[in-house]
């Protein structure tokens, strides 16, 4: 059996003797390289831990189990393994998109490891729920179309999806970079993980977290409407909500300077 370091392509940077550790967790279709500007901003003062989710980046593809990762709980267990194996403490967890929720669930399960949470473009549920008025941004029909497009021509879908969620059309290299990491995922794994993410519902867990959290949104995120950020802020105790002046689902990529600044203020 591989170690967590091998399984999750873990890289440790920054100050080895720092009292606090920042872990960066990437979202679906991305990888640890997306955090490079943030890593450079914090590595002088913090120990930095970077990793790739199993199924993405350079994580061990053989460790992907459709069963383990049929919900995001498999990733929560992975993060618990990583915290234990690296013997981390005072963790500031910066999670983008699904990894924000993975960080939050991990902080509920293993609170003693965590100091702060930063949730970039995260959502507890992507599906709308008309009966309660919850706005998640997607309906089942839209998701079925998305799955169908992924199954039919994955590479074409990846390119189109990247442009849709990254936005910032004046900087096409941002969408191109995301399309590259997204396309490198095996199509069947991408579909399986996308289903686990888009159909999850962790709204009931939000209130269980005791770790101070910063919720970061952009002005226009096609994957996570502003109502989701407001919902999380209302339900996560001791949370703050900040809006970064950029569009798209990747604030740390499209406006790294502003994200660095608000994280510094928060931590």
């Amino acid at each position, binding site marked *: *059996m591989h170690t967590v370091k091998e399984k999750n392509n873990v890289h440790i940077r920054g100050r080895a003797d720092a009292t606090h550790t920042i872990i960066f967790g990437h979202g679906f279709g991305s990888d640890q390289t997306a955090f490079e500007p943030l890593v450079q901003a914090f590595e002088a003062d913090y120990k930095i831990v970077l990793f790739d989710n199993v199924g993405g980046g350079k994580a061990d593809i053989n460790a992907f*189990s459709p*069963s*383990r990762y049929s*919900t995001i*709980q*498999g990733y*929560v*267990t992975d993060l618990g393994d990583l915290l234990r194996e690296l013997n981390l403490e005072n963790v500031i967890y910066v999670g983008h998109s699904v990894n924000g929720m993975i960080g939050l669930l991990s902080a509920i399960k293993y609170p003693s490891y965590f100091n702060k949470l930063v949730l970039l473009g995260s959502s507890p549920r992507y599906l709308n729920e008309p009966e309660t008025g919850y706005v998640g941004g997607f309906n089942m029909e839209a998701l079925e179309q998305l799955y169908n497009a992924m199954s039919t021509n994955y590479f074409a879908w990846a390119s189109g999806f990247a442009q849709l969620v990254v936005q910032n059309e004046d900087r096409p290299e941002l969408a191109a970079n995301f399309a590259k990491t997204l396309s490198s995922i095996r199509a069947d794994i991408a579909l399986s993980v996308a289903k686990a993410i888009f159909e999850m519902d962790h709204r009931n867990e939000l209130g269980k977290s005791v770790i101070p959290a910063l919720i970061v949104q952009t002005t226009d995120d096609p994957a996570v409407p502003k109502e989701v950020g407001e919902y999380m802020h209302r339900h996560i105790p001791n949370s703050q909500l900040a809006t970064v002046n950029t569009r798209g689902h990747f604030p740390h990529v499209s406006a790294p300077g502003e994200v660095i600044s608000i994280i510094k203020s928060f931590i």
Partner: protein
Amino acid sequence: MTRWERTALTFISQTSDWDRNLDATSFIPFSISLLRELFGAYISLQLDFEDAYTAKVKAATPSYLNDLILNPGPIIALLEQHYYKAIYWSQISERNAFEELFQALSSAVILPVKGHGVNAVILFGWSEPQSFDASARECLEIIQARLKEILQQSHTQRIVNNTMSRFTAIMHAMPQAMVFIGNDGHSGWVNTAAASLLQLDRSGEQPPHVLSAVMGQLINSAENKEIITKEAMQLFMSPANKMKDMKWEIPGNTLLVSCMPVDGIGRLWEFKQIF
């Protein structure tokens, strides 16, 4: 009678009709819930070993534990160490294979249920310390044996049902009309094409006398019924008990008819339309 003996008897009595129930997936949650109540345990759950990377929590009380994923490696090592026998922890040690589940608990029982299509452990945990004396262990081992017995029965039934459904679907999908008549005088079966050919109101099980009657009618309607009757006599007298490609000239519908023995239990008739 001790508390544990009463528990074992209640469990056996409450699960007495499950041998006939085909759904093992609902049996385990039912059993876990019943046993939790009987034991007065605080937590109860099933931990399924779905693959080498996945031990998934199911049927849990409290329900927030459901869907948690544990690493199977350390748990399987523990079970192997105990030869897959029940494990009793009167006092749960701080470091253990289930520490993510057994938080703030004093005692626990781990019942492995392996084989017969199930690879799981059933866990019970108590906040208050429990002592597992000989009577308790005997009760839990009776329950473990009962669980295995019912799961084996359910698994066998499920396999039989699945196999039957699959082969029935295949037989009904065949374009040839297929008629089975059992040697026991009680069993007969036709596929969809045969029901249509013989103008029966339904496919599937049919009494042999009904099948003989409708096949007799079909022969009587044939333009070459004398030849068919002669060939049928040869068939019944032949040691091989089989005949291939007899031609039945039904007006507007010529059939190639074959008959073959089926493993000593009956005969299978096959009707192919040639135009």
